[in-house]
């Protein structure tokens, strides 16, 4: 049951094959078994069981709230959840209990979703590995998969090779791991520079970033106001579409949400691929791109072409500057957004009481880690009067050039862009930490952050396993507010590639009845 899609489980609930309480308990038990992944910061067991109970009552009366009723979900720990601790994986907010729910959380709960818990992340969503939070790093479930271990020639699974576990990517690594390990059917992440799509690619799940302005940011603890969006992580594209349908729409509490009415939609199975024009941005062929990713990218392009789509090379000329531009704008907005953490109204407060400034300074030193402090200081540097024009305003101008690059490409008849999501498959933690956070973010966000600067929708779809048995994902980028069209194409593509199900050996032995082995179709992108 846990291996099914959201839609399948929802049908099972409606038909009474399983009750919400049973489903909730299965997920809770799996969360306990996968505790070593460190995907969850808070497991809201009591709340979840209560919600499951209420969902059960609704089903018994035949009054289900829809496709999400009774479905276990998880939420990244930078979304405010009423009465449930929200920490952003930082000392600054340890023990902070918000008095309200983020709009997207409220929408999920209003549709009957069952909240399993808050997932782990990089501190304040700054990072590309989910390794820099105060609750420790998140481990990629694929580190323990049969597919990976077989390739590493590990015969006995009693053998503890845990020291070389892989990162999940970030910053929504906990959400990605939670979905990949079957502990929930959907998870919320946030996406500022690729934070949903990056871990999705590394964990073999679907990571969807909606258009900026489509989904409310109210209650999402802000990083970069002009780029943040809530992201959706699920095991298939159809599930992401279901969740998007529940979350999209104007929110009076977030004035950056557009007011256009959002029609509920179901994705068709056919995508009229022969009418499509797929763009391949040539500047994304980075020298650091692994040959395996490049090969899958090329095969994917060929797949579309073989189905009659027009596949053309396009140019996004300012690509090489986009990561620099992102770095300046991100640190500047971060410097502003982190100013609210002064220890007075909420969050951590130090013991020094000599003066306000001494108190603020010590609180912030104790509350923030090096990464956050580094970005605040960089941001403040770029915002100094003598630097403002040359750095901040300059970056805003470059942002327009980057956004225009995309507009020009889409205006020339391209429907969707196809690019890699990450440079390579997930790397071991020990290797990842050899470089500092800023360097890693600059490397890993290379394909994803331009999308945030232009506010476009994008989705990472798992494609195939690498030679090492690890997931590789590819990214589709759509026109602004054409999220439905984008997901339609992604769904078609997903059906063609038939990405294999993760085989988590130890867990399968214990709950073998819960997993169904999917049949692999003949068309695939396996090497």
């Amino acid at each position, binding site marked *: 049951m846990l291996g099914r899609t959201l839609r399948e489980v929802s049908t099972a609930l409606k038909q009474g094959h399983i009750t919400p309480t049973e489903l909730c308990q299965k997920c809770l038990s799996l969360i306990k078994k996968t505790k070593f992944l460190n995907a969850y910061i808070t497991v809201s067991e009591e709340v979840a069981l209560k919600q499951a109970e209420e969902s059960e009552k609704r089903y018994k009366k035949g009054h289900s709230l829809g496709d999400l009723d009774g479905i276990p979900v998880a939420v990244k720990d930078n979304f405010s959840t009423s009465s449930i601790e929200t920490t952003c994986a930082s000392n600054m907010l340890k023990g902070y209990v918000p008095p309200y729910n983020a709009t997207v959380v409220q929408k999920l709960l209003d549709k009957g979703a069952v909240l399993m818990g808050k997932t782990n992340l990089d501190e304040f969503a700054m990072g590309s590995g989910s390794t820099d939070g105060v609750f420790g790093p998140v481990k990629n479930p694929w580190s323990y998969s049969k597919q990976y271990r077989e390739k590493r020639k590990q015969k006995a699974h009693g053998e503890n090779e845990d020291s070389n576990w892989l990162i999940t990517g970030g910053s929504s690594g906990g959400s990605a791991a939670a979905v990949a390990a079957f502990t929930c059917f959907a998870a919320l992440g946030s996406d500022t520079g690729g934070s949903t799509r990056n871990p999705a690619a590394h964990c073999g799940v679907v990571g969807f970033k909606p258009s900026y302005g489509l989904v409310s940011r109210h209650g999402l603890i802000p990083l970069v106001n002009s780029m943040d969006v809530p992201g959706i992580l699920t095991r298939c594209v159809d599930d992401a579409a279901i969740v998007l349908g529940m979350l999209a729409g104007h929110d009076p509490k977030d004035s950056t949400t557009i007011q256009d009415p959002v029609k509920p939609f179901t994705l068709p199975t056919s995508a009229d691929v022969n009418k499509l024009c797929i763009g391949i941005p040539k500047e994304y062929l980075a020298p650091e791109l692994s040959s395996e990713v490049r090969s899958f990218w090329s095969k994917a392009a060929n797949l579309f072409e073989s189905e009659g789509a027009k596949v053309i090379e396009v140019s996004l000329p300012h690509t090489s500057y986009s990561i620099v531009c992102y770095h300046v704008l991100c640190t500047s907005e971060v410097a502003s957004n982190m100013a609210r953490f002064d220890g007075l*109204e909420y969050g951590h407060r130090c013991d020094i009481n000599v*003066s306000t400034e001494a108190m*603020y300074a010590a609180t912030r030193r104790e509350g923030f880690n090096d990464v956050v402090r580094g970005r605040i*200081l960089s941001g403040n540097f770029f915002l*100094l009067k003598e630097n403002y024009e040359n750095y901040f305003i300059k970056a805003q101008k470059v942002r327009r050039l980057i956004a225009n690059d995309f507009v020009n490409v889409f205006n020339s008849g391209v429907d969707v862009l196809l690019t890699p999501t990450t440079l390579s498959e997930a790397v071991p933690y020990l290797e990842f930490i050899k470089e500092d956070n800023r360097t890693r973010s600059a490397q890993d966000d290379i394909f994803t952050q331009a999308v945030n600067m232009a506010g476009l929708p994008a989705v990472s779809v798992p494609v195939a396993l690498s030679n090492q048995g690890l997931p590789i994902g590819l990214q589709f980028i759509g026109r602004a507010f054409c999220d439905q069209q984008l997901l339609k194409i992604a769904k078609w593509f997903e059906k063609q590639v038939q990405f294999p199900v993760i085989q988590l050996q130890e867990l399968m032995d214990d709950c073998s009845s819960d997993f169904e082995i999917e049949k692999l179709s003949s068309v695939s992108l396996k090497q």
Partner: protein
Amino acid sequence: MSSLLSAPSALREDALRRLKREMWARAVKLGLRSWVGWRRGFTSKADPQRSGRVTAEVIEHLERLALVDFGSLEAVARLEKAIAFADRLRAVDTDGVEPMESVLEDRCLYLRSDNVVEGNCAEELLQNAHRVVEEYFVAPPGMCSPKWLNRLSLSELRI
């Protein structure tokens, strides 16, 4: 102290005020010891590799504005690298290009009507604060030492 007590009242007042100021200055110094101490040590070990953009002056200024301290030499080095990274933007020709603040710039921002529909949750909000007295958040006293007043005016001059 005995001479203070026997002095005429105006002089005594003045001496007391001076004493208070000195005590404040000492307390402020104590509170900011970690800020000032390591930095003095640092500037004497100048790293020849650094571009020199992040001078001691800039460090002090940034720490004051951000209310976050660098904490180590590595942090300064990281800022230098970040600046060098950002300098790459100079190569882009942005003549005649308007800065972009938001991707939704062509749309009208939505504004709610000015009616009170929620609130009245002071108790709930106060629960998250560490120091509260009745319905007030309690803050330590503001900066009132002349040493800090001097610093403030100096940084204004720099601007």
